[in-house]
């Protein structure tokens, strides 16, 4: 039997002085292989053309469509309605600034994050267009790729208790990013350099280890492992730093 779905959607347009935050209800007949991408577009095209939400690749690749789906952060395009009850509540991701309805500003948050962790290779070597590429072990390349699969959807940040309480907390996604550069042989930063970036409550010491982040990551990144890895590394870096004979 085809179901009738009821969508409770958060509505607020901060640019409209008449708008107040509230929930709107939309009703749709479910169709086979319906996703939230299909449903929300149908609502916009047929019922309310002002409804704001973000989708881009619609294929679970770009991370644009993070939202709270029945209370849990997830990607709208990847979520099939058949896996949900017939009443579906959609809210924008917390932590990020609201643009309107389900749309939030992840771009600004992530740009600030990568400014903080200086998310690029730090090296003195100058690129030589005539030379052969520097060699790398394929297994290391694959390890780096594992951590680089993050799509910056913001789900882990939205699912993190610390991030909700502390605006300046970098979140698992930033720590994962640091781990990515830490294992990259091309990056010449020392452990002490990384310690300066994340050896604070904004970084590794703010994390309470409750792992809301890993549970909701749609790319199934090993965030837990990275948090543990960095804790150990940073613990050592801290010790070395306070010992006069410790090297950088």
């Amino acid at each position, binding site marked *: 039997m085809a179901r009738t779905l009821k969508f409770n959607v958060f509505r607020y*347009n901060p640019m409209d002085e008449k708008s107040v935050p509230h929930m709107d209800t939309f009703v749709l007949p479910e169709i086979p292989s319906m996703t939230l991408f299909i449903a929300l577009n149908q609502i916009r095209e047929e019922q309310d053309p002002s409804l704001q939400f973000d989708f881009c690749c619609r294929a679970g690749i770009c991370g644009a469509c993070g939202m709270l789906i029945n209370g849990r952060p997830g990607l709208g395009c990847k979520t099939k309605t058949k896996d949900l009850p017939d009443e579906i509540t959609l809210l924008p991701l917390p932590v990020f600034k609201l643009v309107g309805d389900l749309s939030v500003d992840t771009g600004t948050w992530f740009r600030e994050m990568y400014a903080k962790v200086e998310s690029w290779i730090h090296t003195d070597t100058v690129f030589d267009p005539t030379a052969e590429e520097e060699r790398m072990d394929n297994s290391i390349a694959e390890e780096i790729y594992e951590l680089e699969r993050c799509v910056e959807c913001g789900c882990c940040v939205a699912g993190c208790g610390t991030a909700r309480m502390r605006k300046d907390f970098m979140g698992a996604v930033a720590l994962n990013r640091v781990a990515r550069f830490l294992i990259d042989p091309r990056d010449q930063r020392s452990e002490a350099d990384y310690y300066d970036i994340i050896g604070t409550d904004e970084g590794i010491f703010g994390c309470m280890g409750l792992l809301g982040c890993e549970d909701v990551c749609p790319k199934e990144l090993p965030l837990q492992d990275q948090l543990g890895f960095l804790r150990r590394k940073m613990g050592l870096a801290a010790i070395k730093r306070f010992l006069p004979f410790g090297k950088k």
Partner: protein
Amino acid sequence: MQTFYTDVLSIGAGLAGERVAIEAAGAGFDAICLSIVPARRSHSSAAQGGMQAALGNSAMGEGDTPDVHFNDTVKGSDWGCDQEVARIFCDNAPIAMRQMAHWGVPWNRVVGGKGFYYKGGERFEKFEKPENEGLITARNFGGTAKWRTCYTSDGTGHTVLYTMDNRAAKMGVQVHDKVEVISLIQDGKRCMGAVARCLKTGELRVYLAKATLVAAGGFGRIYRESTNAVICDGGAHAAVLDTGVVPLGNMEAVQFHPTGIVPTYILVTEGCRGDGGTLLDVNQERFMNIYEPEKAELASRDVVSRWMMHHIREGKGVKSPYGEHLWLDIRHLGEQHIRGKLREVDDICQNFLGIDPVKDLIPVKPVQHYSMGGVRTNKDGAAYGLEGLFAAGEAACWDMHGFNRLGGNSLAETVVAGMVVGGKVVEYLQGAEAQFKTSVIEDQVAKDRNRIQRLIDCADGGEDAFKVRAAMQDALQDGVHIFRSHNDLEQAVFQLQEVHERAKKIGLKSNGKGANPELALALKMAGQVKLALCVAYGALKRTESRGSHAREDFPERNDRDWLNRTLATWKNEDDDLPTLNYEDATPSFEIPPGDRGYGGGTIIPMDNPPAGKED
């Protein structure tokens, strides 16, 4: 209203836009990239397969050189490309790839020793030279003589774009995301920047720049079934067409990719076939090896797509509620390979089809995928018609792809063109003075404000923007697809002219306040229909078959009359058709027109074939 000044304004923060911006920033100029979405969500990130560069490090790529790459590219283009540009591209691709490695891309690397690979469902052995261990490796892609496609598992676009964006951040390139360009500021001679709408607040902004770059990607979303992201809608192309003086090149050259999954048309990468996947019909029998004994599944995309449609027409398609399709079989590649090197494919199958590609067949059919056409530029990336306007990447018709681009040649184009055109933009900036005419800026802003107000007031009518879009998509989908013919094309042009009239009468149903999505669509709708008309009308006039442009009523490739590029301009706002002109496909020949070696078909030769070195 906010006004921003910069040296380079890039409309687009994908690979091409950011690469140009990085070049400018490296030379000490200010650069701003605009993007509808955060830079890293640009469609470049969706590319899974890889990018071509003749490094020749892997066993199956041994002996590869830019010359071989050049040969493949020109054949791939069906001799429709600019050979000077293809040469620049092939020579620079290896440098660009190594530079990306230096900047941080975790390319897959050569692992020395014995290994296995699949071709046409069969397993073969290969031996990687131990002395090449650790160099950038390559995988197989369609239409190439050697394994040349550099990759990072199946997240190539993702890792390359993330690395590029990291580099852009390091170099101080600014990215203004959730900002959409709605028109160019120009006086018919010189481009001075763009008017944009902030998609956070809905406010208009003015960007003034010495050099403006269009790097807005493809416009596939004018079709109903497309692999493209929903933002690949041609809004920036429409702004270019609206200048009335800048032509778009070869808009009828639209690529259909053989393996869009049915029914959502999400792409599964050509890497599936490159890594040994096969296409099967309703009887679960292979058929590409019958039509193309030599290349089989790995002929160029236009050829494979055509044979697939042909096979479906022969009654060998699989019936489904979403129309007929064929199967892609990767089961024999094994669980380890599929869950590792083809993980995104695995994810897509599990999430969007509810099937397991390790055990199940994947339903696929050819769908719109790539826009060979775009803003026509010269070999330096400078647009025709306006000084200070440049274009690069998929948005441009730089024209190394001609009438069909090879898999892996587009991502590579974005970084190579970014590097080359970036250099030319820097040269331009070094000689350029800022010349902003206040009256021109004010006029353009007033015009855009007026457009917005009329849409909100329903001053021209109450047509529904979404319905107009659907009508446009249907017209193209039905009339300008893989196989084309006079009657269908004429019908499509006629329908689109009607849709164009409707697009002029759009009125908003909502209040248009803030980042209103209905307004965003309404603002570009008429422009999108004009693009669709460039595609349909260009296809109607081109009475030959070349690359992706296959006319059933003119099956020959006609080098005598059509070895040229279509230039479409929208001269007057009131016109209901583009003005078409033609220019030679290439200023000089390194390889004179000949047989591609796959795809069959007859050729009407040139009257005076050029002298050149034969391969």
